[in-house]
């Protein structure tokens, strides 16, 4: 069908639909509104792409922070080759270039019956379709000793890029040469599977130059390195010999923040800088809205549309979702979820069928120095029989070795994906 025919057919369909509607309802329908909660890799991308693909739909993005700070590349702030400012992008272009209404507020509750989002400060927002991209919340109740705000301010997570990232860098700078940095990793699944191991390499990179007698102690609750195992082991042993020590099966019992002491099953470790990445679940708004699935931590979604399995009309993206098999909780994946969801939302609101077989992909780059990078990649295709996204057999894989070509690609990737979401 050529473009002209399609257009005339569209006009006809529109006219007929209006005619047949006129008998039972008002023919002039007000513009439809999508509300997006959360302006991270998932939410910002969804907001932009709905406006790109369907400018007739109104989009309101609710975000509590003034600017987006990228978790990818934030370990480089600890290593010293990146500033936090360089990871920060404002929401201005979403509003000025794409007509997204950006509301700086906090979403407190969702009423799926009234189709409203209640905000901390502003008036409730009505929606025709809701997208929730809330990221992760930390389960401090599973880390005895870190329940108080005071303890959390001393033993940092730095697992959401921003002030904590900068504060952890300051703690590392204040550590005397010969001091120990200990990193505790929670049981998978958690945000960014290779992130902790990249962090170990970045802190080792910093120590090698400035504190060569210092040590990086990786205390992993998992039985083994969760992602890119061989590549990280090689990087640690060849680039930072004697600096990085890895201890698997290090289940956390408790933390004494005043003493920088971590109690594990069978041993306790005192560190100069103690960094505990707490266990995680879907961001808080998902809990209140009744979106959580069986395990009560993550949101089960229909992977063809990213619509919640528990509450119809709400699409959920990114780290908060109950990940499909072989799918990491990454910014890249959240960006790709957003595009499938944006298209599905447009399909619902314009009355066409959703994309029958979405195909999305992932590439996670990890820096093992200031220049050299290793990646893991995968392609995921919707399987209508299994009703989930599955890794395409034969697709994806790892870097053969750390290299600086991919280091340049990783930095270019970051600029492009930030722009893809926000600029």
């Amino acid at each position, binding site marked *: 069908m050529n473009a002209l025919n399609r257009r005339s057919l569209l006009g006809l369909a529109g006219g007929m639909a209006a005619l047949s509607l006129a008998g039972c309802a008002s023919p002039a329908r007000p513009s439809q509104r999508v509300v997006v909660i959360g302006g991270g890799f998932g939410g910002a991308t969804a907001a932009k792409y709905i406006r790109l693909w369907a400018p007739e739909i109104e989009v309101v993005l609710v975000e509590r922070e003034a600017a987006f700070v990228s978790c990818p590349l934030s370990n480089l702030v600890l290593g010293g080759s990146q500033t936090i400012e360089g990871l920060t992008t404002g929401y201005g272009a979403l509003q000025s270039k794409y007509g997204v209404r950006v509301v700086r507020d906090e979403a407190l509750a969702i009423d799926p019956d009234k189709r409203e989002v209640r905000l901390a400060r502003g008036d409730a927002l009505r929606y025709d379709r809701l997208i929730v991209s809330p990221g992760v919340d930390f389960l401090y109740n599973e880390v005895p000793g870190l329940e108080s705000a005071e303890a959390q301010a001393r033993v940092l997570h730095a697992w959401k890029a921003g002030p904590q990232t900068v504060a952890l860098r300051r703690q590392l700078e204040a550590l005397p040469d010969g001091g120990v940095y200990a990193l505790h990793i929670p049981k998978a699944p958690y945000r960014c599977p290779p992130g902790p191991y990249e962090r170990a390499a970045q802190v080792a990179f910093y120590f090698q130059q400035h504190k060569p007698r210092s040590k990086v102690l990786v205390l992993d609750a998992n039985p083994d390195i969760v992602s890119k195992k061989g590549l990280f082991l090689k990087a640690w042993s060849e680039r930072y010999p004697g600096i990085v020590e890895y201890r698997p099966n290090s289940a956390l019992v408790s933390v004494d923040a005043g003493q920088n002491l971590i109690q594990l099953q069978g041993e306790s470790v005192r560190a100069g800088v103690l960094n505990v990445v707490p266990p995680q679940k879907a961001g808080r708004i998902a809990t209140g809205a009744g979106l959580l699935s069986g395990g009560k931590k993550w949101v089960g979604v229909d992977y063809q549309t990213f619509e919640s399995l528990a509450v119809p009309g709400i699409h959920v993206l990114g780290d908060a979702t109950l990940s499909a098999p072989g799918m990491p909780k990454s910014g890249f994946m959240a960006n790709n979820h957003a595009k499938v969801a944006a298209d599905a939302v447009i399909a619902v609101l314009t009355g066409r069928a959703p994309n029958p077989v979405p195909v*999305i992909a992932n590439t996670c780059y990890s820096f093992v120095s200031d220049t050299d990078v290793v990646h893991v990649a995968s392609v995921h295709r919707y399987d209508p029989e299994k009703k989930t996204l599955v890794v395409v057999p034969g697709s994806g894989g790892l870097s053969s070795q750390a290299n600086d070509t991919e280091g340049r690609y990783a930095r*270019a990737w970051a600029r*492009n994906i930030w722009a*893809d979401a926000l600029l």
Partner: protein
Amino acid sequence: MTTWKPWLAAFALAPAALTALAQSHSQDAQIRVAAASCAACHGTNGVSLGGIPAIAGVDQRQLLEKLLAYKKGELPATVMHQHAKGYSDAELAQLADFFSRQKR
């Protein structure tokens, strides 16, 4: 809950024309979403800010030859050979066509 507008239109429009319309729309949407996945590295609609090749406005045949060569492992790559293997030849042709029609 979802209200499906096609049911309304179906009364007014010949079924064959409706099916053709729906198919062309969902095919467009499908390739648009698949192409949007590429944008995570190559920039929105393939317009890269630099460092990673821009693929917007590249000749369809040239782009397809490259993608097929990546898929067969005939062209050295860091990651593209691993991505290309996730798509059928027909899908790679559609992607190449999509990006060839984007403005640089």
